[in-house]
Each structure stands twice: as structure tokens, then as C-alpha cells.
């Protein structure tokens, strides 16, 4: 049965059904509704978990690291500066192979301080070893949390998974959501069992010092697991579809790409807007489609190259930027397209929506207008020229 739910509430509901034993978080807009709901669920005994109210995000991440190290399923959520403060621990959790699940309510980074949505925060921990999922809708955010625990806790994986959902747009938006029942979740996601844990009967040392004789191999093994995930994640999404009847997650998703000559590449909620823009363009006879990045790490380079191999022009839409460089998605997509050699499409990079600037269908059509022009690698869309003139 579908319920009309706020994104944060929907995430809290699915996290509750995943039965984490340790939940820890520090409040930051726009993540707060998720953890407030979880705190109430613990208070009402709807969720049997230790809810640890910490003094910083650094400690929130450290608490779930400790909880997970005792073999207990653990959960945290954050956003923006919170994720940056956590960054040190985020890398540590992945290096220690602890399958924590975290929701990131994507938000802009200071300065200037800005509480609104873009996707800059997650880019700071892009290289940490976490599996990075991006949700397009509230439904997909719900489904990806289930898949996140299922994937991360796989004994052949043992990696943390982050579900990225656009702050406000998804966390505070409302949507009719098909919420899996507790029974369905229990069937899909059994209790977490591992021998890799702190246990007085089998005392392990975790978090060794590894010198140059060992470090390289240990890091290589994380990279190897990510490579294996490139085949595991499509299987995961396939099984999920069989169980729940919905397509959610996977490496990439495509929209109207069958005969596309031009394509957008993007991730997150902006994909919904792009679908609308594509429908408008298709109505005018333009052969244009979308490749949605559902999994950003591991980066699905083959899937992306293969989906774009018959396309002439590609527009990569980034809601973040490596200042002084390019949009992160643009950098990765162009790397993936190198495998196509001379057949590679002309690929341009566009920066949109930083700090919560609205991305409308019109913004996407503006990108489309520029697509057939000269190739650009980092073109900002929607700049207010009058503001730029003022500061000159």
C-alpha cells in the first residue's frame, strides 16, 4: 500500500525496518527529520536500538564505527559540514571494512554558509572507499537503504554504503511511497552475522598499523572489491526488482536512450527534471535521452561507455565542482569514454544548482542549447550577470 510520506520520514521508516542496533547522529539541516524520527521510534520502543546523541559528527561516525565493530548493524545520517567533519572517520570506516550505512542529505559547503541542496558534500569523501548510491526519488531512497545493508554486509563485500539524497528536494519533499512491510524487510534482510568483530571469545586486533610492506596490498583489496561490485550491484538491483517489483538503484539507469543521438548524464533528483525536459525535446523531434548515475562508487565506467557509444553529444550535469578543475561527474564520465577511442562522443560539462539554485526544465533546456555548440568542460548555467557585474 502506498503512503504519502515526507522523504526523511520515509527513510526513518525503512531504517527502522532494517533493525539497526546502534544509531548515532549529530543534528544538521537538512538531515534532522530523519534522526528525530528515529529517536522517537526508539523512545516509543518501536525500534530496539541504542540511540547515542553525540557532541559532533566526528563522534557520530566513531560511535557507529564502534557499534559495527561489535557486530551490530549501525546507522548514521549527516549532511554538508557534518560530513566534512566526519571525513576522517568516513575513510577509517571503509579502510576497516565495517559495513555501516549512512544517509547523506546532500547540501552545499561553506563559505558562504548555505543550507540548501547541491552535491558538493559527498564529493569530499568520494575517494574514501564507501559505496556511493544516489537516489532520484523518495521511493528510490527508501529502496537503496535496504540494498545498502544487503550489499555492504555481504561477507564478500564488507564495505560501508552511503545513500545520497538531495537535501530538502528529497528529504523534505512528499511523495507516494510503497513502503515495504516489516515482514518483507525481514525476509530480504536477515539479521547481520559476522565473525569479523570484537569478541572476548575470539579476540581480534582491529585497526593495525600497516607499514610500506603491507599498506599497498590492503588498499588494493578495497579497490578489487569495488571492481567486483560492478557485477554485484546489477545483480542486487535485479533481485530487488524480483522481490519488490520495482527498478531501484543498479549501476546506471537510462531513459529514452534507444535511439538517442544526444544524452544527459546526471545523478540524484535532477534526473526527474531532466526526464521532463527530454519529453519536451522528444515532442519536438529531438533524439535525446538520459543516463542516470545510480552508483557513483564504484564508478560504472563500462556501463556508461556502452550506453553512450552511439551518441554524438553528451552533457554531463554536475551539482558540485572541483574548484579549479571540473565537475566531478564530468571528470569520471570523460575518463570512462576514453575506452571508445575515436568513437567517443563530444562531451561537455555543466555546473548547475549550487547552493540550492533552482534547476528547472528551462535550465536543462539551456544546457541542451549549448550542447550542439562548442565543446565546454565546465560551463556554469544560470549565472546572474548583473550580480557578477556588481562584484567587479
Amino acid at each position, binding site marked *: 500500500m502506498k503512503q504519502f510520506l515526507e522523504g526523511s520520514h520515509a527513510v526513518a521508516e525503512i531504517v527502522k525496518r532494517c533493525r539497526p542496533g546502534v544509531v548515532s547522529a549529530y543534528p544538521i539541516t537538512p538531515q534532522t527529520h530523519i534522526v528525530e524520527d528515529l529517536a522517537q521510534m526508539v523512545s516509543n520502543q518501536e525500534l530496539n536500538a541504542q540511540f547515542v546523541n553525540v557532541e559532533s559528527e566526528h563522534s557520530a561516525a566513531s*560511535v557507529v564505527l564502534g557499534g559495527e565493530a561489535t557486530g551490530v548493524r549501525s546507522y548514521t545520517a549527516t549532511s554538508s559540514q557534518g560530513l566534512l567533519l566526519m571525513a576522517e*572517520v568516513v575513510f577509517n570506516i571503509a579502510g576497516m571494512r565495517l559495513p555501516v550505512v549512512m544517509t547523506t542529505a546532500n547540501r552545499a559547503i561553506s563559505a558562504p554558509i548555505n543550507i540548501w541542496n547541491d552535491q558538493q558534500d559527498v564529493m569530499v569523501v568520494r575517494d574514501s572507499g564507501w559505496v556511493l548510491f544516489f537516489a532520484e526519488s523518495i521511493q528510490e531512497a527508501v529502496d537503496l537503504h535496504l540494498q545498502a545493508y544487503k550489499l555492504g554486509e555481504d561477507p564478500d563485500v564488507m564495505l560501508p554504503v552511503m545513500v545520497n539524497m538531495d537535501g530538502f528536494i528529497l528529504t523534505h519533499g512528499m511523495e507516494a511511497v510503497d513502503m515495504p512491510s516489516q515482514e518483507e524487510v525481514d525476509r530480504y534482510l536477515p539479521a547481520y552475522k559476522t565473525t569479523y568483530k570484537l569478541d572476548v571469545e575470539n579476540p581480534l586486533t582491529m585497526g593495525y598499523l600497516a607499514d610500506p610492506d603491507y599498506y599497498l596490498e590492503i588498499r588494493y583489496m578495497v579497490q578489487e572489491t569495488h571492481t567486483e561490485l560492478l557485477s554485484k550491484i546489477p545483480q542486487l538491483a535485479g533481485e530487488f526488482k524480483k522481490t519488490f517489483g520495482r527498478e531501484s538503484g543498479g549501476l546506471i539507469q537510462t531513459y529514452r536512450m534507444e535511439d538517442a543521438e544526444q544524452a544527459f548524464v546526471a545523478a540524484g533528483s535532477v534526473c526527474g527534471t531532466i526526464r521532463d525536459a527530454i519529453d519536451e525535446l522528444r515532442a519536438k523531434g529531438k533524439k535525446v535521452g538520459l543516463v542516470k548515475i545510480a552508483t557513483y562508487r564504484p564508478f560504472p565506467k563500462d556501463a556508461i561507455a556502452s550506453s553512450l557509444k552511439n551518441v554524438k553529444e553528451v552533457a554531463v550535469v554536475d551539482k558540485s565542482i572541483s574548484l579549479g578543475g571540473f565537475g566531478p561527474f564530468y571528470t569520471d564520465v570523460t575518463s570512462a569514454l576514453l575506452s571508445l577511442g575515436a568513437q567517443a562522443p563530444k562531451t561537455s560539462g555543466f555546473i548547475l544548482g549550487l547552493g540550492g539554485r533552482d534547476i528547472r526544465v528551462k535550465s536543462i533546456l539551456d544546457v541542451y542549447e549549448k550542447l550542439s555548440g562548442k565543446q565546454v568542460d565546465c560551463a556554469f548555467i544560470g549565472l546572474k550577470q548583473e550580480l557578477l557585474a556588481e562584484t567587479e
Partner: protein
Amino acid sequence: MTETLFKPGHTACAGCGQAIAARLVIDAAGKNTMIANNTGCLEVFSTKYPESAWCVPWIHSLFENCAAVASGIESGLKYLGKKDTINVIAQGGDGGTADIGLQALSGMLERGHDVLYVCYDNEAYMNTGIQRSGLTPTTSNTTTTPPGSASFGNPRPKKPMPDIAAAHGIPYVATASVGYPQDIQKKVKKALSIKGPKYIQIHVPCPLGWRHESSQTSEVAKLAVETGLYPIFEYENGQLIPRKIASVKPVEEYLKVQGRFKHLLKDAKGLKEIQAVADYNIKKYQLKAQE
């Protein structure tokens, strides 16, 4: 030698006070104990992959977060219904405790986790090469507080960590010294018998950083106590219980056996300043016998 849970073969320096204290702590706590360890000498010399000196479940995450990791372990054990049978210890050096880890420690104490925090206080960042920490004593010569024409060594007194811990209203706080091994073990056992957050700070000489003979660790530690420079006491539910000094020695006796105070011995004014620290401690913590 009785069976220990902290095996020999690790790579600590000869005479390392921290290595001795860490063994005393875990052996007093026993095998039903889990340890979260901050980054620092102890972590480095005891867990170089693929070897470990630890015979109990032991985890190292980062420099400043052992108190938060231990909070997570305690929460996980509570969830599993195992907390009542397993001790959780968080431990780190003075820098990891009083400086970079103070926030995480304060959070752990304030939230009331059933964890014993042990600070091994060797009074500087020894792991990175003897830089000043918040627990470096006044005038001490460290690599970042070198005496010179404009400086007399470390300009600030030790941060009063035990009092800061006690100010959280926790049930048990104690200081100890590796010069008194039985006292350490008695305090660890007492702490672990109490529910809630506990803090023990152990003075552990570092022959390399303090520049004393590696055979003199115990003697140097005792002199710190006997001069009043390292007050040994407990706060049980906030109530001060001092360890009395039978016969108080002048600070010079402690200072002269170490290189880090060498510059001081030539200066009567500096010496007076350090004696004032000892006198203050003796009064504040009621250390003098028969009073």
C-alpha cells in the same frame, strides 16, 4: 611470571613507562575486556601488522576518537545484552586525551557510558618526537618549547585533566603512577566495579622524551609523586581521597635526573617556580601526611 594479556615482543623503547602501565591495566581488567585505543606510541608499538601484543579484543581507529568508539562498543554490547559481563576501556596518551580527544572524551563522560578511560600521561607528543601537549609541565624542554634567550621552555602549567573529568560529575576519577604498580591495579579494579564513566590518569615516564636512564623509570615516577609534582588521588563520587606523601622531597631531586629540566637547574627563579607548583598540589590535594 604470571600469564599476561599484553604479550612481550612489541617494539616499545627500553624502560617505556607506558608499556608497563598498559600491561598492568589490562591484566587488572582481565580477559573479558574490550579496548579502544587512540593513535599514539602504545598503538604503534603494540599492533604493527601482522603482529599484535593484545590478547583481548582491541581496536584502533584514529587519534582523537577512542572515547567515541568505546561509546559505540558499549552501545553495541548493551544492544546485545552483554554489557554486564564485559569491560570496555578507552585509552590514549596525554595529547590524544587532553588536547585533540578532549571533546570526544567529554561527550563520553557526559553521556554516562559504562566505560573506563585510561590516559597514559608521558607529558608530551612522544610518538611524533617530543612535542608539547596540554599535559606538558611548566618549563619542560620539548621540541616545540625549546628553551632559548626568549623562552624558558613550556610556558604553561599542566591542564588539570582529572579535575576536568571530575567536573562532569562522574562516579570515579583517579591518578596513578607507574612507580606504584599495585596502586594502578587496585584503582583499575575499583573503577571497573563501578557502573558509569570512569577516568584514570597514569603518570608514565618516557626515557627518550624525558632523557632519563631507561633503568630508572620506576624511580623517576616515584620522585614525581614524592615531590608533589604528580599528585596521586581519587575522587569517589566527587570526594577527594589523596595518597599521602610520607616525606616530601624538594623538586630538584626529581628534576635533576632528567634532561628535559636541565636548563632549569642553573636558574634559582625557575626552580622556585616549579617548587611552587608542587606546593600548590600538596595543598590542593591534601598530600602531606599527618595533617
